[in-house]
């Protein structure tokens, strides 16, 4: 019987009422008295030397209040990379300065080099057009292989090979891996590209800065997934504003997918302008600006090799990857292609030997950073594609090759050869569930039906795992992280018994206001409606690290559980005093404190009130009030896993691929709100289909972004997606957090792309086309060209 509230209930998302009725309050909705506007001058060339910038005409334009260039910010610090990566040779990665506004050089199309503040947006934009910038265009560094091979052209003059780091994981295993390849009976090799994506949250970035000339306090309203992290970066690294004089508020935020984790220069400009003018300064990003300034995702070029015996048992895996970092290091950019990617290369398999080499490369493109999945989609895509190819080469069934290489359910905790310890899992269970729900046995008859319609049908699989719930601070500290990745919560029981939960997590679509309330409601036995979740305002919430890496419930939720546990413990003391019983005899159930074995009982509300009206209260041993905080640092990542089956139809006349069936059987451990979990999987799968079939950022030879609007950047739409069959009934609860939960937010985006591509390859091969691989996105023209090529080769 499904519950109707609390843990396990599909409680309706309470936040959706305001979102769907136009009552959300996003940064762009906030208007302060006396507010003025900033517009940015952005580079139209991918690479250029700034000889001079003449702002005199702009400064004289109507309504203009201030003009800034990179020169105005040279004293400020660099917007830093959050992780130091150590190269194979022991050297620390090269970190060029990332200025607030471009200085000396512009390094990508869209790189902001000047800003104008004016009374209206139109006046600011008019004045931007009056800025005269003498920028000498240089050859753009675009192709990673040539950027590394030829040091005549440099993104950063001081970095001669355009390489940020050359990372080996795990370097000590390299010789053993190479030796295994030399003696392996079979080696499958695949070269592939993980396509560059633009994040496209529904709400573009926006910032509004306010400076109080009386108190000298700053307030920044901004589109952030992690307001405390923003405050820390602005305070400690870039602007030097003392943390206690800066409040960062991330109100309702319309999606992020990673792109709103990071601190961007525009935020520093609005703060500096507000300080200079003593007036609130606002910036709302245009969609066209977003395409050339939001951090992009993915963009890896990889060669992967899989060594097996003749029966398809994995012996070793080896990869070489060039990871595009773009022009500057965005905050998580160095972690994404390394520790969020290399550590995943074992997958759910018992491959004994794995070695990963990643070179991070600077190019004259928008910075690349974490995007839904962040490194784990790149890892999963390689693994699941090379396995698919290997099975075809060896003539082994796609399901059987996976199953025979799975880590067995009795092998946990399992230490992988790439540095992780999986706490629990049962990969065969999700695979069986996928086979059942996806009716893989009936595939051949469905294929025959498609064939009768003139379509080629294929089925593809992906059995994925990921590491999320970021992250154990001690572990990531060893790996080079410059921050801790715990989280924090305060549970404040008000005198009248209702509750404010202050969380370090930030909800930008996830549904935290609903789910966190379900958890606390279940623990305290009070209605969900009596619990308010407060997030996004650094002046209210404790120092938590925000939401990304599928961490909100596993990490921030655990902090809430721990704070709530403290509330219950304190209540028990109060109850024991009032009912003249021993604390150990107090039982808390269904919202009542009872003395075991008696009918003596006090409700949670009575105890809460007495904490604030402490007349009958053990004041000599207990403080009044009922408010508790907890910081929680996870002992390990969580390791959700799943099995996906995708069926496609390929139109041989046009090359168009239609996803006609999709089954996702996932293990997220315990599930708090099934409806929200399913919604997260739906969204992730659709983004995965987007990457596989539609989305890619394309640059021309000059580094111009040819996909700078929705006229050319293709997003998946509802009619591109079949009814998704999603299941989360296979549950191996996480062993190291009290809720037993694992992250689910990125799963779909991680597991889906290889399932789709494998299905297309299956369809084409079954149709007689000898095609081993097509790089994503598998657009109609690419699929048709591959078919035409295969046909020509056969003739």
């Amino acid at each position, binding site marked *: 019987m499904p519950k109707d509230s609390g843990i396990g209930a599909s409680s309706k998302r309470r936040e959706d009422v305001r979102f769907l009725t136009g009552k959300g309050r996003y940064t762009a909705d906030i208007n302060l008295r006396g507010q003025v506007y900033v517009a940015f001058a952005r580079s139209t060339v991918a690479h250029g030397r700034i000889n001079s910038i003449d702002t005199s005409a702009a400064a004289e334009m109507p309504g203009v209040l201030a003009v800034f260039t990179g020169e105005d910010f040279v004293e400020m610090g660099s917007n830093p990379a959050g992780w130091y990566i150590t190269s194979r040779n022991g050297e620390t990665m090269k970190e060029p300065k990332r200025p607030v506004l471009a200085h000396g050089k512009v390094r990508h199309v869209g790189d902001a080099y000047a800003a104008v503040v004016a009374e209206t947006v139109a006046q600011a934009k008019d004045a931007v057009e009056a800025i005269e910038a003498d920028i000498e265009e240089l050859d753009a560094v675009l192709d990673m292989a040539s950027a590394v091979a030829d040091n005549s052209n440099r993104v950063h003059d001081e970095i001669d090979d355009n390489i940020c780091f050359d990372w080996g994981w795990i370097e000590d295993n390299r010789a053993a891996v190479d030796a295994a390849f030399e003696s392996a009976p079979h080696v499958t090799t695949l070269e592939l590209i993980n396509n560059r994506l633009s994040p496209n949250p529904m709400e573009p970035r926006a910032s509004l800065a306010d400076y109080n000339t009386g108190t000298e306090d700053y307030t920044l309203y901004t589109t952030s997934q992690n307001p405390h992290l923003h405050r820390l970066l602005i305070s400690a690294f870039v602007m030097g504003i003392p943390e206690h004089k800066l409040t960062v508020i991330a109100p309702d935020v319309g999606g992020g997918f990673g792109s709103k984790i990071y601190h961007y220069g525009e935020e520093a400009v609005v703060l500096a302008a507000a300080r200079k003018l003593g007036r609130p300064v606002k910036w709302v990003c245009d969609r066209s600006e977003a395409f050339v300034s939001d951090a992009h995702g993915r963009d890896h070029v990889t060669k992967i090799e899989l060594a097996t015996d003749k029966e398809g048992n994995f012996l070793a895996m080896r990869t070489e990857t060039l990871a595009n970092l773009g022009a500057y290091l965005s905050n998580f950019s160095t972690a994404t292609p390394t520790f969020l990617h290399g550590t995943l290369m074992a997958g759910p398999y018992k491959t004994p030997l794995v070695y990963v080499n990643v070179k991070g490369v600077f190019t004259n493109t928008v910075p690349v950073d974490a995007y839904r999945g962040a490194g784990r989609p790149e890892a999963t895509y390689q693994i699941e594609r090379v396995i698919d190819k290997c099975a075809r080469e060896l003539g082994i069934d796609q399901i059987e090759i996976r199953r025979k290489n799975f880590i067995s359910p009795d092998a946990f905790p399992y230490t992988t050869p790439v540095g992780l310890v999986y706490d629990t899992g049962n990969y065969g269970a999700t695979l069986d569930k996928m086979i059942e729900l996806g009716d893989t046995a009936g595939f051949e008859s469905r294929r025959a039906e498609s064939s009768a319609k003139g379509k080629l049908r294929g089925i593809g699989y992906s059995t994925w795992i990921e590491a999320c719930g970021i992250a154990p601070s001690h572990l990531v500290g060893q790996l080079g992280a410059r921050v801790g990745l715990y989280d924090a919560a305060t549970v404040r029981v008000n005198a009248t018994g209702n509750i404010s939960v202050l969380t370090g997590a930030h909800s930008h679509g996830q549904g935290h206001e609903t789910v966190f309330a379900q958890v606390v409601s279940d623990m305290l036995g009070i209605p969900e409606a009596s619990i308010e979740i407060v997030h996004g305002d650094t002046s209210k919430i404790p120092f938590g690290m925000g939401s990304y890496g599928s961490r909100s419930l596993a990490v921030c939720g655990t902090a809430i559980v721990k704070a709530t546990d403290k509330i219950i413990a304190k209540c028990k003391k109060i109850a024991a005093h009032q009912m003249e019983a021993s604390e150990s005899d107090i039982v808390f159930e269904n919202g009542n404190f009872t003395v075991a074995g008696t009918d003596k009982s006090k409700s949670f509300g009575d105890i809460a009130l007495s904490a604030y009206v402490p007349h009958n209260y053990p004041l000599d041993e207990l403080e009044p009030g009922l408010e508790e905080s907890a910081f929680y640092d996870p002992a390990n990542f969580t390791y959700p896993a799943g099995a996906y089956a995708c069926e496609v139809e390929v139109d041989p006349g046009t*090359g168009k691929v239609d996803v006609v069936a999709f089954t996702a059987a996932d293990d997220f451990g315990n599930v708090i709100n099934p409806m929200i979990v399913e919604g997260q999987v739906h969204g992730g799968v659709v983004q995965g289909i987007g990457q596989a079939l539609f989305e890619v950022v394309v640059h021309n030879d000059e580094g111009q972004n040819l996909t700078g609007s*929705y006229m*050319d950047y293709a997003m998946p739409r509802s009619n591109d997606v079949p009814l998704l069959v999603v299941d989360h009934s296979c549950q191996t609860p996480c062993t190291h957090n009290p809720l037993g939960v694992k992250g689910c937010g990125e799963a779909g985006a991680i597991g889906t792309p290889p399932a789709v591509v494998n299905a297309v390859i299956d369809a084409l091969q079954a149709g007689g086309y000898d095609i081993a691989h097509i790089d994503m996105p598998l657009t109609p023209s690419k699929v048709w060209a591959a078919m035409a090529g295969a046909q020509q080769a056969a003739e």
Partner: protein
Amino acid sequence: MYAFDFVKPSTLDEALSALAEDEAQAISGGQTLIPTLKQRLAMPSKLVSLTGIAELKGVKTEGNTLTIAGATTHAVVAKEAAEAYPALASLAGRIGDPSVRALGTIGGSLANNDPSACYPAAALASGATIVTNTREIPADDYFQGLFTTALDEGEIVTGVKFPIPEKAHYQKFIQPASRFPLTAVFVAKYSSGVRVAVTGASEDGVFRWSEGEEALGANFSPDAVSGLSVDPDGMMADMHGTAEYRAHLVKVLTARAVAAANG
């Protein structure tokens, strides 16, 4: 966007006199012009709306001719032409999305002559007549290349007369991002012969595939074009499709259009 004046006259004469001013520009549904203005790529001093003029609206059938007034929206055509010319109504009902169809107009589409627009294919394949405030222009003379038409400065499309074919179908293959035609083919069969118009494919905009027309004139079946090939020379090439791909699509889509027209 830059500042501009806006007028919305209620008669064609008022519109024409407003348009006589320097830097004045007509706006109908604005589905191309508004995005262009938002990106600051155009700077008209005055926009003259054509959507408040009663005589520029409506769909009517007289004999074997369907006439659509210039400022009639796609949504209205999709509904009101459905009986007389279902293939044309179907084309109108598949342009863009509901918001585009509620605002965009046939006159705006034909005046703009985007090489990937839908309506030019229908007009050319139907041998339609483009009616303006000064004259009538046969479709074969009207389309003159990318974003280029026979219209003079200040001339307004007031209507389009479509001869109603015996059979017709519009086969659209969409570009995945814009959902404009990557290539689309309108096939119309008349007692006088078959006309095949292709949009989205050529560097010169909408064109008639005469080889296909001849073959289909002799045998109106999909097989009639199976032995033909389309020259990729002069086809558009971009990230969404090579010239060879578009040339290939012309043939595939023509065959499918014929199959659909034959029901």
